[in-house]
């Protein structure tokens, strides 16, 4: 009982790891651009596919994919931002939500046309096969790696934004883009870079997810809506909030599923409803963030 409970908590941390990376990317993009990127799940899916295609046609291993895939997807994201999204910044933010929805439909169905509905398996890298004995239980090595890698990346991103001069400029541009521009900083280029960076985070999560689930064109669908719920629970715009909430929600949902299995799919939305009732701005959100 205790061992399976521990396993379930770790499973929750694994799904939390994906929520955290995705909602972190969404939070960064939202912070600077004030848009919600509906195509974020698609970037996650593309990240996994770049790894898969790289392995199939070029024989690239997992570790190379973990670096290369986010870079490639970041470029895709930056092109989308420059060519399409940037045209709508002067309008209501909802148009960009709709635009990224259209992009999602297009990319997902194009991928489905090429690769079919069924997913393809992606093998776990040989160094991470098997399971580790943690003393109190045995847990698959690769899943532990997902938790650790995700935590490391999330903390690195947080430090980058909160503790470095680059991050300070970024936060300043979030607060007052006109002023930052007056200091001679190219804000539109920064916006593009930030969008690319957010997409890279999603792609990184996608590569990590490839060996856990199948690589499938609709895999982004399964994660983007729960991630939106995580964003609502955590509150919009807070960097540390999105990371903490991601892991927290992952664990709470896993525990809920452990004690009452039928609730597993909907618990995250019940949590969301509860938070909306008790703390409408979200656990870490400020009131301005919700307007």
């Amino acid at each position, binding site marked *: 009982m205790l061992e399976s409970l521990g396993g379930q908590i770790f499973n929750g941390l694994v799904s939390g790891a994906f929520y955290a990376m995705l909602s972190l990317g969404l939070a960064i993009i939202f912070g600077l651009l004030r*848009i*919600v990127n509906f195509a974020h799940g698609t970037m996650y899916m593309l990240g996994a596919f770049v790894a898969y295609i790289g392995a199939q046609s070029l024989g690239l291993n997992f570790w190379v994919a973990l670096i290369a895939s986010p870079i490639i997807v970041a470029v895709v994201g930056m092109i989308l931002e420059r060519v*399409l999204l940037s*045209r*709508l910044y002067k*309008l*209501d*933010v*909802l*148009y960009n*939500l*709709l*635009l990224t*929805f*259209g*992009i*999602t*439909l*297009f*990319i*997902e*169905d*194009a991928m*489905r*046309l090429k690769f079919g509905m069924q997913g393809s398996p992606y093998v776990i890298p040989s160094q991470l096969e098997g399971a580790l004995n943690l003393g109190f239980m045995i847990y698959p090595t690769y899943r532990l790696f997902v938790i650790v890698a995700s935590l490391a990346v999330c903390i690195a991103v947080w430090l980058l934004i909160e503790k470095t001069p680059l991050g300070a400029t970024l936060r300043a541009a979030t607060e007052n883009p006109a002023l930052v521009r007056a200091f001679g900083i190219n804000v539109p280029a920064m916006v593009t870079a930030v969008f690319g960076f957010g997409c890279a985070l999603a792609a990184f999560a996608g590569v990590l997810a490839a060996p856990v689930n199948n690589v499938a064109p609709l895999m982004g*669908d399964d994660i983007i*809506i*729960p991630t*939106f*719920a995580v*964003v*609502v629970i955590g509150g*919009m715009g807070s960097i540390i909030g999105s990371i903490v909430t991601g892991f927290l929600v992952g664990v709470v949902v896993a525990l809920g599923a452990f004690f009452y299995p*039928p609730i597993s*799919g*909907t618990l995250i*939305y*019940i949590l*969301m*409803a509860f938070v*909306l*009732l008790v703390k*409408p701005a979200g656990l870490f959100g400020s009131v301005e963030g*919700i*307007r």
Partner: protein
Amino acid sequence: MLTTGQSDTSRARNYVGFALLILGIALPWIVYPVLATNIIVWALFAVGFNLLLGYTGLLSFGHAMFFGGASYVTGIVILRYHWPMPLALVAGAVFAAVLAYVVGALSIRRQGIYFAMITLAFAQVVYFGVSGAFIGLTGGENGLQGVPRGTFFGIPLTDDRVMYYVWFVVAVVVLAFVQRVIHSPFGQVLRAIRENEARAKSLGYDTERYKLMAFILSAAVSGLAGGMLVVHQHFTVMDNVDWRTSGEVVMMTLLGGMGTVYGPVIGAAFYLLLSDRLALLVNAPGVFIGLIFVITVLIFRRGIVGELVARLSARRVRAGQRA
């Protein structure tokens, strides 16, 4: 603020309405009747949706929960509990309204993107309900099959064209009702909220209550459309509660012209005729649909009716200057 197709002048609106009425009568002889009926049903769904997006300025990204959810409720009470069809339609609409009351009570204070994300997330709960918790009633992956059409106040509906004309009349009545609402004092308040909520509030209107009422009304119309869908096509499937369906109705409304009375009708017709053609060409229509969506959002935001109205009023202004 979202670009709505300006307030369409009443004369132009009457022309468009008359043309649509004629087209609507001729439709089942132009395209096959089942497609024609689909157009009517989705047009009504888009009209209900536009009540919220176009006239209140709230973007719901979860309207499939009302449309699809009600299609299941109507289908289930007919198939499993043998309710008379008109009563089953009402049941579907009431279900949607009650659901909207619950979801709206939790989300209506949020604006813009937040509201869109929350409605999207709640719609997923309905999706899980259909695919999991209530699978015994809904049929899950197989969909709800073999729902009989029954009769509508004595009119047998076995013939596809009869089915079409009955739904056509129902849709016209509902559209007239929605039009009445839009041009009522209630509708004026909704538009005031769309333009400037803070000002509407400072004038003493309880804006949250108005928005909630608009949400419920919009959901009820969408739910009625969902019930009409399951009755005419004998079945409903999980796609109808999927988030893509929520996106589709946004697209129809945008394409036709949000905030115009007939825009959603034209948008829905255009969209369905297009996907009907595309379905023959390619089995992943999202490639084209997504592309059209992107183009619409980028350069055609006023939509078909909105563009038309803008052109007409520009011409009138020019004519006025000449005189």
